[in-house]
């Protein structure tokens, strides 16, 4: 992975030239423009600061607290609103019996939603918040927030404004690469650039992980080939007990049932973007 700044790509040399180059690049890439920045803020303010917190998450209090804020903060008025909210929600935090709350409560109310694959045991299970049974009524974009290894994919969906496609009333299958998969694919610089500045490319990348219609892993294997929303045809083959998606990627925890869809976790990133991760590298901090 390349270092974000000031470090020459040649190990062993750091000097003026590297620093200079970086400075120029940084300012070129710099914050888009005054106009677009203002646009971003006002759009944010329309959405409102408390929208994230008050949006409906999984039914319980715990889940509502879990909702990710999409609002941006504008000023004291909004802060005050947040503080009020705080009092309410924090009150909930003090419940002495967490098992009464949250995703857990519903786990008992429905048949267990079975997920399969080697990674599943590392993910919320049983009555833990975010367990598979607690997500079955959640839209895909909300369910993603409860699966800990999908933080990159989840944030990318928000960055690309693709939540609506994850709530397609006709159903959707979400092939979600894990955080490890993202780390193997993209350098941090590259991923930040996609998330912040190359949103069209990011959208195309994410659509390469969406299939119209809700398909279980068995359904996908039976089909043998699907077309993702970016228009790419992808082969699917059995790789017991999982499935291989394309040539290099396998599911690692499959068959999360969500409202109108399925989520299958992948150990690799699909789509056509070049690999930029450096297997030996971690960016400097």
């Amino acid at each position: 992975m390349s270092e974000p700044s000031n470090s020459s790509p040649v190990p062993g040399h750091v000097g003026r030239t590297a620093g200079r180059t970086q400075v120029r690049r940084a300012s070129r890439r710099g914050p888009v423009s005054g106009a677009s920045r203002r646009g971003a803020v006002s759009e944010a303010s329309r959405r409102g600061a408390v929208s994230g917190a008050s949006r409906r998450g999984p039914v319980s209090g715990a889940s509502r607290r879990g909702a990710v804020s999409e609002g941006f903060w504008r000023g004291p008025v909004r802060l005050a609103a947040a503080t009020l909210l705080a009092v309410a929600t924090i009150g909930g935090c003090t419940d002495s019996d967490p098992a009464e709350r949250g995703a857990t409560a519903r786990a008992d109310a429905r048949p267990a939603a079975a997920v399969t694959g080697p990674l599943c045991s590392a993910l919320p299970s049983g009555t833990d918040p975010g367990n598979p049974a607690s997500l079955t009524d959640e839209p895909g974009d909300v369910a993603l927030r409860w699966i800990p290894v999908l933080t990159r994919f989840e944030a990318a969906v928000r960055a690309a404004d693709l939540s609506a496609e994850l709530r397609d009333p006709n159903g959707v299958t979400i092939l979600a690469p894990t955080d490890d998969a993202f780390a193997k694919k993209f350098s941090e610089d590259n991923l930040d650039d996609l998330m912040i500045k190359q949103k069209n490319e990011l959208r195309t990348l994410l659509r390469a992980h969406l299939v119209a219609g809700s398909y279980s892993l068995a359904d996908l294997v039976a089909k043998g080939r699907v077309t993702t929303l970016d228009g790419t045809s992808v082969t699917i083959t059995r790789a017991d007990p999982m499935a291989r998606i394309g040539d290099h990627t396998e599911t690692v925890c499959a068959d999360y049932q969500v409202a109108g869809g399925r989520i299958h976790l992948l150990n690799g990133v699909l789509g056509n973007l070049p690999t930029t991760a450096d297997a030996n590298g971690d960016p400097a901090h």
Partner: protein
Amino acid sequence: MRTRRPTVVVLSTLLAATLGTVTAPSTALGQPASAVQTAVAEPNQVSGLTVTQADGYATLAWTPIDGATDYQIERAPVDAGNVATGPAVIVGVWRPNRQINNEAPTFADAGFSPGDRFSWRVRARFDTTAQPYSTPVAGTTLAPWGNPDVPGESLRTQWETTKAAQYTSDVEEYAYTAEVDRLSERVRVVEIGRTVLNRPINMLVIGYPTPPPTAQAVAATSPLAINCNVHGNEPGDREACLVLARKLAFGKDAKTVDLLSHTTVLIVPTINGDGRAANTRGNSTGQDLNRDYSLIRQPETAAYVRMLRDYRPVAGYDGHEYGNSTAGDLPMLPPRHQNVAKQIFDESMDMIEGHMYVQGAKDGWWACPYGCQGGSGVGLSEETILRNTLGLKNTVNSLLELRSSGGQTRPDEGNSANNRRRKTYSAFWTFSQFLDYHRANLPAITQARSEAIEFQASNTGRLVFRGSRPIPLHPAPHPGEAGPRDDLPEPEMILDNAPCAYKLTEEQYNGARTDGPGEVGATVAERIAAHGWKVVKAADGYYVPLAQPERGLIPLLLDAQGAEEWVDGQRIYPTGTGRHNGPLSVSGFTCISGGTVNGPVTVRPGAVLIATGTTISGPVSAAGATGVFLADSTVRGPVQISGTTDAVSLVDNRISGPVALSANNTGSDVPLLAGNAVSGPLSCALNSPAPTNLGVPNQVNGPKAGQCAAL
């Protein structure tokens, strides 16, 4: 001389190879220390296993087996009757390079859900051949800190209530910290600034029984600061900060009360709120904020730097996560830039090696140098990195990394809840240790800081624009033989002959800039004010003297030779260096370096005098000057400075005679009177603002009066 540096007992690879050849199958039986076990031990069976519970982790310790290559640690969930309720798994490997002493191996097991009950066993391996497991030891881990039935203590973060399935959102952070503030007398939450997208940047100010009321009052307590989340996609430290804030706010134990009775803790949970919400490394413009602390192009870093100016923490930690799977649990690194005063570098190293490595060996956490083992391109000298910026501001500090990937001694758990908890509680351990270090070593810290400020203000020695001090390979516990890269300065990054000051033009100083968000940047004047540097305005431009505490940082931003400077200021060299006999009348701009004046010095109205390393045999008087800077000098006679308009600074001088500062009206500049030895009375009156000593006391052989009574 303090001797806190530990002795290195063992170095990893060589020893491991040697150990592999040893054959001593019955040593365990021969060790009386292991006799605590009732059963007859098998050959090479680990004995003496103890498990000690702490916040979010359990420290395992055992009696070492002669000839063992390494040890495996196994954990199984059990019920109250110690019957297994799930599979046992190997949760770690202890090997000699995890700690600086090997006669008492320890391993911090973490990642489990706090409050659950487990049984642990340890076994030795000879090469890869496993030996018998120890007798198991069961224990219930500590539940998340705070009694659920006690208001305040019962607060929990989103990360805690979701069992680490989710991180605490921005909204939840504000709500949580507001509740901590509301319910604890010890806590005040202040907003130190706003992000590009206008999220508040909050700081918890924590003291006992209440935090001092103003930034200035906090500064007087030699506070310490934790920056929890600069890279938005590295959230582990931030969760530790939020839990730690709760413990500090409500903990009734003697240790917490003692800590907070002696200093003030500053915690900034989220300097990069926009990046955290978006899960990006950079802020909303894509700027890596940890490449901006000197430049302060972004509002987030500018807020932090203003906070440093006002609250003046004497020590700091900066939290990160990293994905290098070949190094230790908790890489740390001091400010290495060669312009950082050696005293600050040395004390920071002492904090890391003398405290963290030693305590890590006791508690089972593997602290190690950042930049070792495959990290040759990291941990370098960029002054844009907070670690170095803080050092250049004379603050003892370290970077902290939490390893997010699997490591050589821990399993790869992906971004699971287990991994998140291990990271966060390792940060919790580090920050708690940081408080302990500060409590135990404050005299050493403040001495290092005082000496550093005096050194910087003396403006002696070469300037280095980029280049690091080497990090010695040992006594660091190390995964291999490769230490952090030396990163010595290239010749073109060195300036042997330091100027006296930089002169900026009106355009350079006040001109519009385009290097901030939306191509709008603060002026250099505003950024200099944020850093807190002294500037004097003369007829031909703005002078920034190097004879001030941030002398190491100033050239990096104002010299054309800098790697990432704001402007190419004009180097101004001393106008006098030799001997001057008779009265000296200063008008215009005068800089004396290493000079001798035999006679009185009079600074005329509107003039600027800068003198370093100079001996003045006679009185110094200034009335209505623009600026007066005296450092590392001797004055045989009284010093009288009144009516100065821009800046006053007297640092580390020996003055035989009374010193009087009166009616200096220096606007936003706070007159500095630090580290002087005065034979005679010191009096200050009617100065606006009142003078400060930046925590560097003056030795005054006579009464101290007026605004200087406490300096």
